[in-house]
């Protein structure tokens, strides 16, 4: 029992500190230490994961096989905690707006991160559902945190559609349990291997429900309608967090369930096609809707839909080439690159909005290249990186995924991805054009962009370092991703 608790350590650190933060809101007068405490908890969680990794706990299972600590789970635990750290660091302005609810905000981020981490390590459908609800409910509240008009609208839309998605997901799980008699992923896998023949239709019905439920979390078209409103209404750090962490965990659990439980060739041939179709749809929908947006948060919301489509190429391409695991490790690599790049973009957007009267209009970025050259440069770099131009993290990720698609006989999907890369340049370059080419007439009256606060600088350092390390030395991350994925297929 104690060993089980030990395996739960990285999540438990976050949950305990989160609980403390809730109460600190009620009893503490000086709430400035809370942010430091949150960061310490996230750092502690990362350290705990690292200790589990090095101290020989890899591959051990806890709670009757419901939880596993393998390299795959640890990869995501560290990625998610890192993303949460960046989101907390850029939250200073949000916290100043609501000083009395500071602990609540930080606690909810911790709870949500713990849920996402748990999701990456779950090997039981019940555990998956509990972890998903833990993170979803925290996120519903966070999206509507500013109780203004946009916040309430985004939060309510996210809550209502999210509740439906949870119900659909639960229905899929119930069908799977009814067919196989187990909620444990490896038991489901062995049932399908031995007795699955002849039950493909029913198993695929369950799989479709699962894809819909998790697709909602990953904001894949056609389950993306909540994303633009939730991103616009949410405090911007939360939008940044949602766009990377939620997506990462959703893909983690998709990989885990579809390759561990439903990975039999009997089914893989079928769901591979579904993923290919969703990838195509998601890329086109995300990119075409993003072109028309003037609000940069909405634009990035649709861009994240398109990016989710690109990621799904990895799920579609995987089954045909089982031996090399390229698709899954491609997803992990792309996710890590996308996470740091998107966080970098959001960090700059938050900084600009802080001095821009809270405006997220792309047209208000005109002439920013002169007033704040460094900020503009970082944003331009992040956006160009999101297109996938060399030599950036996303570029290597795209090459990785497209090549996997070609190798597994899905060359058309790689072509669709390449075409969409071109389309995406149309909107990613719009803010760049506004900043560096467009000019404003009353140059002197424009607000001065002040020096960012220390914590935001720290966040920027964190994500920029991530972008540079992955972009200049992708081999490190490729090795980590391949080692992580090998844990699932062993």
């Amino acid at each position, binding site marked *: *029992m104690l060993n089980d608790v030990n395996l739960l350590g990285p999540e438990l650190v976050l949950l305990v500190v989160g*609980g403390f933060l*809730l*109460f600190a809101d*009620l*009893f503490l007068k000086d709430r400035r230490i809370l942010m430091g405490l949150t960061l310490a908890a996230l750092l502690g969680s990362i350290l705990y994961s690292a200790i589990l990794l090095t101290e020989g706990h890899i591959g051990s299972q806890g709670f009757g096989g419901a939880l596993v600590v393998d390299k795959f789970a640890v990869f995501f635990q560290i990625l998610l905690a890192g993303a949460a750290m960046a989101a907390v660091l850029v939250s200073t302005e949000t916290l100043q707006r609501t000083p009395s609810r500071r602990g609540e905000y930080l606690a909810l981020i911790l709870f949500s991160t713990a849920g996402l981490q748990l999701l990456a390590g779950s090997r039981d459908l019940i555990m998956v559902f509990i972890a998903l609800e833990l993170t979803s409910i925290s996120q519903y509240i966070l999206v509507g945190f500013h109780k203004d008009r946009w916040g309430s609208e985004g939060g309510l839309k996210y809550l209502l559609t999210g509740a439906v998605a949870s119900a659909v997901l639960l229905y899929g799980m119930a069908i799977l349990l009814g067919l196989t008699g187990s909620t444990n992923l490896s038991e489901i896998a062995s049932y399908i291997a031995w007795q699955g023949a*002849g*039950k493909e*239709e*029913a198993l695929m019905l369950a799989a479709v429900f699962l894809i819909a439920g998790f697709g909602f979390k990953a904001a894949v078209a056609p389950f993306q309608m909540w994303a633009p409103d939730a991103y616009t209404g949410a405090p911007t750090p939360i939008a940044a967090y949602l766009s990377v962490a939620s997506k990462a965990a959703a893909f983690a659990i998709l990989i885990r369930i579809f390759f561990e439980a439903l990975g039999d060739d009997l089914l893989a041939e079928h769901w591979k096609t579904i993923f290919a179709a969703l990838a195509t749809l998601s890329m086109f929908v995300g990119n075409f809707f993003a072109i028309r947006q003037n609000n940069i948060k909405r634009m990035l919301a649709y861009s994240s839909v398109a990016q989710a489509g690109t990621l799904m190429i990895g799920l579609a391409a995987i089954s045909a080439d089982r031996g090399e695991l390229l698709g899954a490790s491609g997803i992990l690599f792309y996710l890590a690159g996308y996470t740091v790049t998107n966080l970098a973009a959001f960090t700059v957007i938050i900084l600009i909005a802080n001095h821009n009267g809270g405006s997220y209009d792309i047209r208000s970025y005109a002439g920013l290249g002169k007033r704040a050259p460094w900020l503009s440069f970082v944003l331009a770099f992040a956006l160009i990186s999101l297109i996938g131009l060399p030599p950036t993290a996303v570029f290597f990720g795209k090459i990785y995924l497209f090549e996997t698609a070609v190798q597994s006989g899905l060359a058309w999907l790689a072509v669709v991805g390449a075409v969409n890369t071109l389309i995406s340049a149309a909107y990613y370059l719009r803010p760049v054009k506004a900043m560096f080419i467009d000019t404003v007439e009353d140059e002197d009256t424009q607000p001065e962009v002040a020096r960012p606060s220390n914590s935001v600088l720290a966040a920027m350092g964190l994500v920029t370092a991530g972008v540079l390390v992955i972009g200049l030395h992708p081999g490190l991350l490729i090795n980590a991703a391949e080692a992580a994925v090998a844990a699932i297929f062993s």
Partner: protein
Amino acid sequence: MENVLEQYAHLGILLIFAAIFPSLPLIASWAFFKFGLRPRMPNAVKSDTYECGVETEGPTWVQFNFRYYLVALIFVLFDVEVIFLFPLAVALDSVVVTGLVAALIFIAVLFLGLVYEWRRQALEWR
């Protein structure tokens, strides 16, 4: 596999009937009115809200006190959480100490929740 589908086919037939029964009178009523077979003579009693034959009292759009919402929510919360203790009570002789400790931790978390609500003034009748 076919057997299951056949069973659902029976349900499907019922579903079709369930759709026809309520919609047929409505369509007939509309059609009779269109062809002038049905007169249209509304009066106050006829277009009144139907409440099992009893005369309606007061306006339909009554405003409920918003305070009920919070109290009801807290009640449902604790009500549902206590249900989780029942399976444990049934299986207590097989889970013994670990189960008891887990239950105590669960109750402690519930208690903390109550303290939180209390300090947030959710329990005050304002």
